[in-house]
């Protein structure tokens, strides 16, 4: 039961993680911090 809950937790975390990663790739995502172009 506990293991199932952990797997569920991880599934939720992974989903949020991947959606956020996708959102950060959108063109309008602010990219205010830019490396100098050495």
């Amino acid at each position, binding site marked *: 039961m506990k293991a199932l809950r952990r797997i569920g937790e991880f599934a939720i975390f992974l989903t949020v*993680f991947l959606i956020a990663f*996708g959102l950060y790739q959108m063109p309008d995502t602010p*990219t205010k911090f*830019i490396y*100098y*172009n050495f």
Partner: protein
Amino acid sequence: VLFTEFSFIFIFLPITLAVYYWLPEGRQRLVAIIVASIVFYSAWNIYFLPMLLFAIISNYLIAVQLHKSGNKGWFYLGLVVALTPIVYFKYSGLFIHTAGIDIDTGFFGEKLGSLLPLGISFYTFQQITYLTDVYGRRNEPGRFVDYAFFKLFFPQLIAGPILHYNQLVPQIGQPVDRERLFAEGTVYFLIGFIKKFFLADGFAAYSDPIYDGTDPVTTQMALIATLGYTFQLYFDFSGYSDMALGLARMFGFLLPWNFDSPYKARSISDFWRRWHMTLSRFLRDYVYIPLGGNRYGEISRYRNLILTMLIGGLWHGAAWTFVLWGGLHGLGLAINHLWNRFVGIRLFGLGWVLTFIMVALLWVLFRATSFERAMDIYRGLIAFEPLDGDRFWWWALAGAAITFLMPNSHRIVEFVSERMRLPAGFSITRLAPRLGVYAALSSLVLYGAAYAYYTTDLDRVAYRHLTAPQYASGMDNRSGDFRNNLWSKQLFAEDETRIMLAGSSFTSDTGNFQLLRDEQRIAVSDTFGMGGNGIMNGLRAIASVANERQADIFIVGISPLNFGITVKSMPFPGECLDVVEPEFAANGYEFPVRPLGACNALPSQPSSYLSVLDANRNGGVFQFKNFIRNIALSPTQNPLLLKSLQLNGLPGRLDDIVVKFDRMRQSQVLIRNTENGSDQRFNWRSRKIIESLSKDEISYDALKILKEIVRKSGGVLVAYETPTVAHSDAPHIYPEGFFEEYQSRMTVVLAELGIPYLDLSRILPWNGAAMRDFIHPELSIRPLIHEILLAWIFDPEALRQAGIVDPAKVPDIPGIEEVLR
């Protein structure tokens, strides 16, 4: 790393929390935070880490001696050691530029004063508070680990709040309600994130173009600039501070407030009690009071106020606009005190209005990059022209409602905390390690996906079918050639005319597009990598394709930025090493290898996959990110701009280009992303660009080698000059006469080497001030350049007739007919 970045929120933070709470309470936890903070700092630029560590160690050792001996000499030594780096890096440039001299720092040809170690302004102040507190016996020097924690604790490391040792260190080991603090911290962080990510950047989109442009400023624009920046700065900085407070709470520490609804202030001195409070206190305790404060009568009090604020202004940035801004605030404070002393009538609402107006007006000076631009905006404001409807007014209304009427983040957190009931059995020491494991596993999933993408044929398929949806957007990658791995694969179909385009990021995008000409399929594989990273990147890419005889025509885009000392510093990792090395050896070169960040970010090195996790930063695995983005965008994806291009109709299309350029010339193109203006940081002369193009010099030989590699492959090499600015357009970028000198040199070199050269340098309607950089997403320039280049190859006569470039300067391409079959 910024607190709003993906890798910070989803990877660094959970893993750090996990390790922190997994360890037993005590010194181990401090060490964990110190290590995490060093990682956090190094992620930005590891080259400045030794400086930070030196600052910490020297400051501590001196403080210990100071405490032992009580000798004032140690105190002064400590001050000198603490202040030297900031004077060198931050302020020397100001005085040198004011005197009109450029000095090479020795770092990548950068000018003195243009490189600034992250957080130096904040950690320097922290060093001073610590020294002074030890000297004044307000605290002992303490254990080194406590002190290092105080200095490095990452929530406050790069942008404050400015702390005293006594504000943080006594909290170590104190029993606190960690669960409640963690929950409060999350709320703080969320509020800060919304302020910074959505509100601040939303306002910036309106005000930045006006500050960075050169257009005449109407009253409407001036109001947008003034109000927009007033709200932007508040949301940006207070959002950052909220996030810092929140992060510290997640680890069980309280940091002092930095903002307390400053725009509700009823007087200037009230404003400075509410705005960047830890700095105000620092200035009061370490500048104003040592100057004498109000102890020597009224006159010296006002002088001290103004002096303190002048120094405060200079601290914000090394420019005279900041000094004036500080001085005027000092004057405001003096008037404020005079009023209280001699008039003493309380103004209530009027005081608030006057304060807000003064603060907002002075922010113009703070933000403007020059006095002239600030004056443009002030003139616009007092022109009192009629205003038009604009979506900005809704933003301004929202900004005003939030800053004037809403309770601030501290009250919100208090409110939530009082009403929050944590679930029974909730324990941060049990939850945090789990979150860390989930974050690590999730990162592995993403890492694995990126690895699978690059090590299977998926990348090739995606590259051919899913790339370049919008030529006009998303150009923020300027790292090395991220497709190194692809070049060894078969990108083209057998029956295509195969063209490889290696341009600068200004004229190229990642992508593969196909066209038809007389029923012959033509495929163009476009990359960048020739840009600021030097010609070696493009050379490397071309070398690996040519070596496999994968393309027929190679088009390289060049610009001055490609040449000079950087050529020597470019390494050749990966498979093209064996192609290029013998060629260099044949020309008498030792193999030039020097590690440089951009080129290490190659998917061929497993370690570079890690950068996939850092979504908001330029990374080596850009192609994978592009792939993800294309999936995310696919429902609304634009059709490929060039996919349907029938080259047979080319002359008509070139006429369209003429019209488009005309339209660009007439419109003011305002560039939002002005941080890209890095080219003006280069010391063009010290890079020895032109010198290196002499016979037997490195840039000359690099071009010669490029030509040789392509010749051996049986292909044809052509070059074009990337659209660029010259001194007359953009004196802030190029020295006078530089570009012309470069170009005439390049024309001779390429003629000697037999590489046809199409000069597109002046094709764009440059307006040097508005277009501060080479990267202009709004211009949608890439498809136009592509069409011009394809016209040159397939129908040079049509290009000559189109009148886009001087017909006499459209050379024929020898051998092209054989290649085209």
